[in-house]
């Protein structure tokens, strides 16, 4: 049984069809990439899969359960976390607080009006470990808005990881990063895939082809090709579109 399975997803905004009969799946521990040109519908696809938009048709199943149309918070609580293409952080909070707020431990105490979160050593250590995992050790007390672009990208992933997900969706994590930042991120994703199932949208083909087990190509809101990186390099459409050459 697949860990994650989306079948026949369709989504339209008014007259515009954005997704048409999308079918994607992921085995446990797999890293699946999604590629395609700008405006192909990749981020909308992620938004449908993670509950931001309700699909018009189709089903999404995770760990054997139907999660179609559930709210983002319900999907998050079932073990799916995501990062965003446009960074979504708690900018006034420190890096540590960004991660802290996302931990299940704090979430479980969400309605507790008395406990002092600043005095909860366990929660703070847990959050600090997540920061260390994404390469932000030593930045705990730095306000999120004061971090460098690359550090904010790492924190974005850290916030997603803090929720202790079983599956992680990463939306263009290398966007705006230089070669060095991209290399660091590739190392991080490689280390994460040891214990997480990951679905990743990426424009950097070299990055994606080096990490993914399987890749789906989305264009005009449809999956037009799927396969391993090697299979896709040989795919006629991918070759013609020059996407494969970039890898």
């Amino acid at each position, binding site marked *: 049984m697949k860990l994650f399975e989306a079948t026949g997803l369709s989504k339209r905004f008014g007259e515009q069809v954005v997704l048409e009969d999308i079918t994607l799946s992921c085995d446990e521990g797999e890293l699946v990439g999604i590629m395609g040109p700008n405006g192909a519908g990749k981020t909308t696809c992620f938004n449908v899969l*993670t509950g931001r938009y309700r699909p018009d048709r189709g089903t999404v199943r995770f760990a054997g359960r139907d999660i179609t149309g559930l*709210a*983002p*918070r319900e999907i*998050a*609580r079932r073990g799916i*976390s*995501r990062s*965003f293409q446009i960074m*979504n*952080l*708690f*900018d*006034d*909070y*420190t890096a*540590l*607080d960004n991660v*802290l*707020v*996302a931990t*299940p431990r*704090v*979430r479980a*105490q*969400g*309605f*507790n*009006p*008395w*406990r*002092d*979160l*600043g*005095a909860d050593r366990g929660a703070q250590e847990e959050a600090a470990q997540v920061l260390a995992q994404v390469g932000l050790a030593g930045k705990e*007390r730095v*306000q999120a808005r004061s971090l460098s672009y690359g550090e904010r990208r790492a924190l974005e992933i850290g*916030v*997603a990881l*803090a*929720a202790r997900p079983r599956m992680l969706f990463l939306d263009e994590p290398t966007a705006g990063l230089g070669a060095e930042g991209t290399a660091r991120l590739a190392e991080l994703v490689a280390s994460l895939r040891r214990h997480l199932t990951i679905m990743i949208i990426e424009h950097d083909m070299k990055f994606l082809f080096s990490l993914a087990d399987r890749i789906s190509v989305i264009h005009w809101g449809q999956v037009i090709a799927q396969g391993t990186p090697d299979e896709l390099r040989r795919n006629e459409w991918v070759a013609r579109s020059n996407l494969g050459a970039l890898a």
Partner: protein
Amino acid sequence: MQLAAGRAPWFPLPMVIVLVLLLSTPLWVARVGLYQYLALEIMIWMMFALGFNLLLGFTGLPSFGHGAYFGIGAYAFGLLQLKLWPNLWFDLLGAVLVTAVLAGLVGLFISHRRGIYYALLTIAFGQVFWFVANKWHTVTGGEDGLLNIQRLPADFGFVAFPLKSNGALFYFCLAVFALVLVGLWRLVHSPLGRILSAIKQNETRAAFVGYNIWLYKWLAFTLSASVAGLAGALFAMAQQSAYPNVMSLHNSGFVVMMVLVGGGMVSFWGPVIGATFFILARDLLGVYTEAWLLWYGLVFMAMVLFKPEGIAGIWQEWRGRLARRAAAGASGAAALSLIQRGADEAV
């Protein structure tokens, strides 16, 4: 709003200063040309503004009809006392509960909104309550309001304290204020407070890490209105009446001005500063001109335009500048000492 990292003390210095200043007012308030009732009124407005800031400053939800809940607390206190049971504890608790229930119902309709739509809905509901208070003569007394509300004694069973004098009522309200102050201080440092602040900063992200945004916004609104209700009940007791003006759009605007001018957007203590500043401005400027609100309004506009962080923001900036200067001085001294040591070693 960035809260200090690490453990939050139960009684931080600003809290001690505020409470000591209030506690000692009977000793000095008359000497500076003011009067005890003014201190009582300031304290009640501080409580109202602190509760309001839980919604505006901490959760980022602009309610421009919050005066309604202050008024509901005042009316509920009066009605419970006059029609049901004249017992201080019952009436106070009842006023808070009635306010919480009505605010909870309003919250059901507005908590899925944000920004301008949220603000407009709060105004609309505020006006509905104001209209009801004005027109439902048989219950609310219409434009005349509820008169003859008593300052009931604080009866602890084994001992009862009369609260008829302004001085006695002041100390009673101070005790309630201290409890509310400590409670709100703990709340903003609790997981609940952090999550409310996270929702203010980024609602989308908060939803995607698993929080029920609607429920938290509803809770923030209901809690904030409940504090307003408690303040309103104390106000009815102080004024010995409840009238439609307490829940008017004016009152709703006043509390917004207090919070913004005081610096509620950047500091927990902003509403305390803002309420003091507003009521003092009203009384002191009011001696010289009936148009005191015009002058206050100009101050408000200037603050919003040039220093939206308010008085607390000015204070924070000044302290930050001092700290930076001190740090620069310390590093300069350290560099000088290194040079000196190098020169000594060279010699």
